[in-house]
């Protein structure tokens, strides 16, 4: 069964550093998303991406965040100048119909 692949599975970074989280969506999917989940809390929408541009973003997704689809297969989330409160699980998801989406296994980001 096709999968959404996320790398790395765990990233530790110093506060103030930039991180790039990588996702390879399912190949025929058109809609891509990033979510985050602070440990033990609910899932929060960050951004949706369609047709090579952001279609929706949340209040959390401020100038510190950016997304790119650099080569037609990867979908990246960049966090500039990380803060302690950015520590969370970050999930990428994709779908082709806005119906059932497929989530990746997540990247655990720890900012120290």
């Amino acid at each position, binding site marked *: 069964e096709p999968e959404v692949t996320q790398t790395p599975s765990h990233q530790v970074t110093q506060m103030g550093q930039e991180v790039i989280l990588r996702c390879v969506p399912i190949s025929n999917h058109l809609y891509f998303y990033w979510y985050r989940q602070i440990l033990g*809390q609910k899932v*929060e929408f960050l951004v*949706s991406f369609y047709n090579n541009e952001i279609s*929706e973003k949340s209040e959390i997704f401020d100038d510190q965040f950016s997304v790119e689809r650099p080569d037609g297969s990867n979908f990246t989330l960049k966090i500039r100048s990380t803060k302690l409160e950015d520590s969370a699980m970050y*999930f990428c998801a994709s779908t082709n119909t*806005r119906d059932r989406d497929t*989530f990746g296994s997540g990247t655990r980001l720890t900012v120290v």
Partner: protein
Amino acid sequence: ELKVEQNPLFLSMQEGKNYTIYCNYSTTSDRLYWYRQDPGKSLESLFVLLSNGAVKQEGRLMASLDTKARLSTLHITAAVHDLSATYFCAVDMGGNKLVFGAGTILRVKS
């Protein structure tokens, strides 16, 4: 601002029993999702409900949507241990911008 409330937040039930998880939301939406999350794992899509009166069933889980009441339910029939997980509902605000409920931790005891 869309608010999504799930209850109960924690549910401990015996195997073989039935129970319902409720998801209330505060503004109109045409799309509601249910997800399952095992501890330390990713989310698994269970159901997408697209219209008023929609009902979907898979195995021991059945989800329904009442858009007029702004309520969705996830009904568990004859629970088994393997259903132990956290269940989230999520409401589409438009453009696939989802707002999630806090999640219901389900523990099924043998």
